[in-house]
């Protein structure tokens, strides 16, 4: 696309989100779609982030609050389970962490360069109810 001259792209400034034909996008998960290079899905906004959300599977109750309130389609849920954060499209807003209802939270913000395994080791531990203050 970026190499194109004025006489090579499609007329009318149109864009196609998919390569070729797609029968019903609502029935096809992203990993099974043939996205075009014109689809913003093909682009990363990872460099927008200062902090990133990390996910601790052990604490997650799959409530899907993070999924519904993520503005950037960056919480990957499959079969009703929270699977991962999509770090190509996450802008690091932190909403997922805010809405996470568990104690401690299953999602926490860490500096962008933080190692995931290290973060999991540092993760606040579940406390017994009587010790809660």
């Amino acid at each position, binding site marked *: 696309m970026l190499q194109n001259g004025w006489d090579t792209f499609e007329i*009318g*400034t149109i*864009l*196609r*989100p*998919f390569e070729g*034909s797609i029968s019903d996008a609502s029935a096809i998960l992203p990993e099974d779609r043939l996205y075009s290079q*014109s689809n913003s899905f093909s682009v990363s906004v990872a460099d927008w982030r200062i902090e990133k959300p990390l996910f601790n599977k052990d604490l997650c109750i799959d409530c899907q609050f993070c999924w519904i309130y993520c503005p950037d389609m960056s919480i990957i849920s499959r079969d009703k389970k929270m699977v991962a954060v999509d770090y190509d499209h996450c802008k690091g807003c932190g909403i997922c962490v805010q809405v996470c209802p568990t104690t401690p939270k299953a999602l926490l913000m860490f500096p962008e360069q933080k190692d995931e395994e290290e973060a999991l080791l540092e993760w606040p531990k579940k406390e017994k109810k009587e010790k809660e203050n």
Partner: protein
Amino acid sequence: MADIFELRDIEVWDGNMAASHALRQAQVDVVAAYPITPSTPIVENYASFMANGYIDGEFVMAESEHGAMSCCIGASAAGGRVATATSSQGFALMLETLYSASGMRLPIVLNVVNRAIGAPLNVNGDHSDMYMGRDSGWIQIDCYNPQDVYDMNLVAFRVCEDHGIRLPAMVHQDGFMTSHTAQRVKTLSDDVAYDFIGEFKPMNDMLDLDHPVTHGVQTEEDWHFEHKARQHHALMSAVLPKIQEAFDGLKALTGRQYNLVESYTMDDAEIAIVCMGTSVETAQEVSNELRAQGIKAGVVGIRVFRPFPLEQIADALKGCKAIATLDRSSPNGTVGALYNELAGALFNTSTHAVLTNYIYGLGGRDLTKSSIHTIYRDLQANAQAGSPTTPLQQFIGLRGPKLSFF
């Protein structure tokens, strides 16, 4: 299916009725319109055809001209044949969306019944709206009588919907002087007219659900120029040959000959008037009278205003000694647009005709044969002197002391 409308071979129609029937015969899918004098009867007639079963499409009576053209754009992007009509203030209100339609490469046909633009408010015919549209990226075809309106509508659909073109087209006619003047119109039967235009062939249509498409994106500095260049390139390189092809097709079908530039007794003409609209024919009548007196007068009518047939016009005028360009729009601070166009067309050629400019007919002011005789007399003097004997720009048909500039 819409009913066939039985037409006589020759109907007595005004320009509006001619446009309405052409839209009906084109089997336009969506007409979205807002009424404004003098184009209103086009959509009124259309509504009446619809009320009587002669039209299958949707007719959206919008809340404004801007809304009408916005609906037309949405409908066209969805993937079907679209047309509307407007004039004057309505055209001005539409203007923003006209640039959108051409930039999005949507083949919409707009009948513009030319009318003055206020203030002061005036419902009568001049070319202010046509001139306002000249940088909007639309094809602009001009008509001189109701027959032209009928024929040029058919041509406009055929040209603008072509996949090599995909640009919207305006069909212009003079408010009242054409739109409300009944004259003979030779008709085509419904099926012959439709076949001449051809089936609508969708392109980048939103309603093709298997191929989603994004229309009307934003471009930054990095892409805007290329898209505008591409649009201009299509307008400049593809449109005139396609119009010529449609003219040839129409001639084969009807015997009626149209040209990108309508030259009238120009072969040996020494003096010529260049103008648009009904004035072309009135000037032809005067040139006939002058020819009878042995004066080598001619007329050049602009048939296609955009894209401007610069080379064809220079060619039509190459033997002339004196040329008058007649502009029916207030030039507001410079020479008339046609003067500018002609000066540009002739500057690098071997033609060294004396070029002058007349502003006339604003707000429907009559262009009389007597005024045209006066202009030709000026031209004779200019031709003889080899230089302008009058100011470059003169107002003609105006009350009070002579008004002229440059």
